[in-house]
């Protein structure tokens, strides 16, 4: 015990003159811990808010949805549940604003009853949401009204019927900024739906029933009784509980991705800790040797410095945690467009605790790697400075490496990868990057020594020689700068990749207007109308919607009950939009099987073709039997081929394609794609279509494209915001490694000065040395980043990564420049003092 207090005292004393330097290394973990705590606090709050707000998001205790009208016996079941109930029929449709003569695709929600029971449709004036059902009134999304310069009191035409606008919708249950921009909502009373004439067979209509229980605790029990019957009719059941789970899952993924980015920042911080402690220990070698000489034991020396590290690690983690808790105030603002709920701001003690524990663990583990040497410092150094004991491998070092490997593995699993195999691969990749960088550093020092350009001038020779002289920083700086560059650049490249994946390729001849919900008997007339407007008929396809009932004889309930059946549940839940044709289109190619088998000539079996990636996810293969329910008629099919589909082309692409000759008589609608050159022409044509065929909906892709771009910009902003942490941490790591390395260079610079070297010469030597280091490190780092991005693109995103030159060059110039700059600023401190003073000051 007495021994321990002495260790603490020694640690305290020894740190006095180097506290600022100690703090430097710990500062590299502050940002990482802050990012981690911020994300975790946000995610904890989000989870809590989901729990609290799920009720107002779905607006009722129970919501039943179906793509078909509820059959009479289901209606009877629903009626028998009692409580309060509302009905809603919703679908996409064009509306017309007579005042401005404008048309626009909206989501019509025809409603009867007092839904929502929790929360409310927020309207201006506020009483409008409770009164519009009494007469022929509509509630219209606020931005829609703005867009068509209409106001409360004006009118709107939905199908064949005009409605008075009684209020503007500010907010409604389960509405986010994004859904409202694609198809803004228009509420009308259900009693007028029939007379709009919009309900035709084949249109995609969603029927909903909202139920508020007299006793909400009964939801579970009641649902248990009727669930099988409802599921048999493909009715979706949403309860407050299932909404919580769904939202939790969706936003769990979001926060997982973000905390992974935070993890990257923290990893960079680890490099900072290890590299700066490494250099710190080098400075302390002589002190330790003296301590050893006068009788301190190896472990005692180790503990003195470990105490310092623990104290600093704790301090850094606490500062980081505090900063992170403050930072989470920003996150909800950043995410508000994505979230259907208001995120509250509160401190999460759990997140703070985790952040501190992780920060401390990291500081200790990564500091131990260089620190453990202290145990074995030979006291002989006292007599012969610079003496390093024969490099016998310390077995304890390997246990630390194993601990670090385990820690990174566990942390990456827990923090976002969520799969042990992938986490292992990730950790191995990090290890490989580390090994490659060390190897490169060793190779470079060896090569410079071997092929030293003896005929270069003094300054160049001197700066080059610094890379291999004793006490050089080459290895540690190349590894830390290189790994930092690799992490940051990978993040950046992946971001570019993600953005390029979702953005549409907009080539000149691509369609920009889509007409859908065209009835079979309307197709000829619509085509004629388009031709009359001089518009090209780029693509015209029929679409049949259907439901999957069985895969190889297994139903959804089989798949749910029997875990050995791998077919996922969602495969049975989703609606399949299918077309039929006998040829491939130019956005797809045959990947497996034979397309020919999709032809129906002289065949009994119906061979269908599936998208390859989708089939993989669904875990089906060629020859598997799928039973579809096509609007009431069961159709048995066999998978005949897989297609590789280029999804980001503006095309109507299909997961499932039937052969001709099966679906012609099924209820269906058609899609027509065309290209309109000017907004005026587009408005003219839309107006004409809507007045002649009110059931047809039109999507103006230009509008959608700009919306998508807006969304992408926001996503990119979120990613950049998080990446900023990694970049800042990288910068701090860079600064601290270079600053600390200064203490190694001072002696030499001072000596040179004493021997008469000029300021300029010493500056040039330093600048060149850091230029070599920065260039080498950033080049290798970039190569690593390219390799890892390529691998990610190939294995995770199923695409190819084509790097562009400019970002590469930019990263190289910035990293090298910053390294040089910091190196130069460093040497300035040495040069501004007379040599005598520096000689006397502790180095």
């Amino acid at each position, binding site marked *: 015990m007495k021994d321990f207090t002495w260790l603490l005292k020694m640690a305290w004393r020894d740190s006095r003159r180097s506290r600022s330097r100690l703090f430097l290394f710990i500062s590299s973990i502050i940002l990482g811990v802050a990012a981690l705590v911020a994300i975790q606090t946000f995610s904890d709050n989000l989870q809590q808010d989901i729990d609290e707000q799920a009720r107002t998001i779905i607006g009722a205790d129970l919501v039943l949805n179906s793509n078909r009208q509820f059959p009479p016996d289901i209606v009877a079941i629903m009626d028998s549940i009692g409580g309060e109930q509302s009905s809603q029929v919703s679908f996409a449709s064009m509306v017309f604003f007579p005042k401005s003569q404008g048309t626009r695709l909206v989501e019509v929600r025809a409603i009867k009853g007092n839904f929502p029971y929790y929360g409310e449709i927020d309207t201006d004036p506020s009483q409008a949401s409770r009164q519009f059902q009494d007469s022929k009134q509509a509630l219209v999304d606020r931005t829609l009204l703005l867009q068509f310069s209409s106001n409360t009191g004006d009118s709107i035409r939905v199908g064949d019927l005009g409605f008075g606008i009684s209020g503007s919708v500010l907010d409604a249950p389960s509405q986010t900024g994004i859904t409202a921009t694609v198809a803004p909502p228009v509420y009308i009373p259900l009693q007028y739906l029939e007379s709009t004439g919009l309900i035709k067979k084949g249109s995609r209509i969603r029927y909903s029933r909202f139920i508020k229980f007299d006793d909400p605790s009964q939801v579970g029990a009641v649902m248990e009784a009727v669930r099988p019957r409802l599921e048999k009719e493909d009715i979706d059941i949403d309860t407050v509980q299932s909404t919580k789970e769904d939202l939790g899952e969706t936003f769990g993924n979001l926060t997982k991705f973000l905390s992974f980015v935070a993890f990257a920042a923290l990893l960079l911080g680890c490099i900072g800790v290890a590299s700066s402690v490494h250099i710190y220990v080098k400075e302390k070698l002589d002190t330790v040797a003296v301590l050893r000489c006068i009788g301190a*034991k190896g472990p005692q020396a180790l503990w003195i410095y470990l105490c310092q590290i623990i104290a600093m690690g704790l301090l850094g983690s606490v500062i980081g945690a505090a900063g992170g808790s403050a930072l989470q105030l920003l996150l909800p603002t950043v995410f508000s467009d994505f979230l259907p709920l208001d995120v509250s701001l509160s401190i999460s003690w759990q997140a703070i605790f985790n952040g501190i524990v992780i920060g401390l663990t990291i500081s200790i583990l990564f500091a131990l790697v260089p620190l453990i040497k202290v145990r074995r410092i030979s006291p002989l150094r006292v007599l012969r400075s610079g003496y390093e004991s024969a490099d016998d491998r310390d077995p304890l070092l390997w246990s630390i490496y194993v601990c670090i490997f385990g820690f990174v593995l566990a942390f990456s699993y827990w923090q976002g990868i969520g799969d042990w195999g992938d986490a292992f691969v990730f950790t191995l990749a990090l290890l490989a990057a580390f090994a490659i960088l060390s190897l490169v550093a060793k190779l470079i020092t060896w090569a410079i020594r071997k092929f030293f350009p003896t005929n270069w001038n003094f300054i160049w020779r001197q700066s080059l020689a610094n890379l291999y002289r004793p006490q050089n920083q080459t290895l540690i700086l190349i590894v830390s700068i290189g790994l930092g560059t690799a992490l940051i650049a990978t993040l950046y490249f992946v971001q570019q990749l993600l953005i390029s994946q979702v953005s549409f390729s907009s080539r000149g001849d691509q369609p920009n207007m889509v007409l859908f919900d065209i009835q079979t008997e309307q197709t000829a007339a619509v085509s004629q109308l388009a031709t009359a407007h001089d518009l090209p008929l780029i693509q015209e396809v029929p679409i049949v919607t259907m439901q999957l009932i069985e895969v190889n004889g297994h139903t959804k309930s089989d798949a749910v009950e029997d875990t050995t059946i791998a077919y996922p549940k969602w495969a049975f839940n989703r609606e399949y939009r299918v077309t039929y044709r006998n040829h491939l289109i130019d956005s797809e190619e045959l990947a497996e099987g034979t397309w020919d088998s999709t032809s129906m000539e002289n065949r009994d079996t119906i061979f269908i073709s599936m998208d390859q990636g989708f089939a993989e996810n669904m875990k089906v293969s060629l020859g598997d039997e799928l039973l579809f329910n096509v609007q009431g008629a069961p159709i048995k099919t066999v998978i005949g081929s897989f297609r590789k589909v280029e999804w980001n082309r503006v095309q109507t692409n299909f997961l499932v394609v039937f052969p001709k000759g099966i679906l012609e008589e099924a209820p269906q609608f058609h899609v027509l794609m065309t290209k309109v050159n000017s907004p005026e022409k587009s408005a003219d044509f839309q107006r004409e279509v809507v007045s002649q065929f009110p059931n047809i909906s039109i999507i103006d892709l230009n509008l959608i494209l700009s919306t998508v771009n807006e969304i992408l910009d926001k996503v990119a902003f979120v990613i950049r915001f998080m990446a900023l942490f990694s970049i800042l941490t990288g910068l701090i790591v860079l600064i601290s490694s270079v600053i600390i390395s200064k203490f190694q260079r001072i002696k030499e610079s001072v000596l040179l000065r004493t021997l008469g070297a000029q300021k300029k010469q010493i500056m040039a030597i330093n600048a060149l040395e850091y230029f070599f280091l920065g260039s080498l490190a950033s080049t290798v780092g970039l190569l690593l980043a390219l390799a890892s991005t390529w691998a990610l693109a190939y294995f995770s995103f199923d695409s190819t990564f084509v790097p562009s030159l400019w970002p590469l060059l930019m990263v190289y110039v910035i990293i090298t420049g910053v390294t040089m700059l910091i190196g130069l600023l460093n040497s300035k401190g040495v040069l501004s003092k007379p040599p005598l003073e520096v000689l006397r000051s*502790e180095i």
Partner: protein
Amino acid sequence: MSSILDVHNLTKTYKNGSNTLTVLDEVSFTIEKGATFAIVGPSGSGKTTLLGLCAGLDRPTTGWVSLDGHELHKLNEDQRAALRNQTVGFIFQNFQLIPTLTALENVMVPMELNKTAGAKSKAMDLLAKVGLAERHHHYPTQLSGGEQQRVSLARAFSNHPKILFADEPTGNLDEETSEKVVNLIFDLNKEAGTTLVLVTHDLELAQRTQRVIRLKGGKIVADQLNVA
């Protein structure tokens, strides 16, 4: 009188690639308790190497050293550290004070390692003896070379060592300061009855000890007793 340091056939070689450099060649001698002893010789003759081996700071290639009855080659690193702490004091040419500690703290360290009670007051006494009581709160960089060497002297005596090793203690000092430091070394040594092993190339200084051995090329070339 019994011996405190027994050096037997000590050889130290360094391998440098294919070359073998013999720095010490079969050196043997014995030092009695309380004696004063000087090792002289030109630079590079192996004096520091010999001192390092005697104090257990390094391992010999062949031969052995017995310090205060302990055969050093039979002890491990930590045991040798403990032995140094209890029986050995050091003075170096380049002082080797711990730059992050004050003068007082530097003197206290060996006692604190040893868990000696009242370390602080003892350290203050020692600093007073070397004439630096009022400089106790200064850091090494705030002290002159002679002052630093006096602090290291105080540190060397803080544990009542049985033997004091001094490697060119005046090598970095001017004549006047040297004189002061040397006098201090001999005075403190006499007072404490410590054995003194002094490495120097200063023959005048060497004459003040009872016995002088001369090293050249790693071999003892002369061993002479001084008449007091």
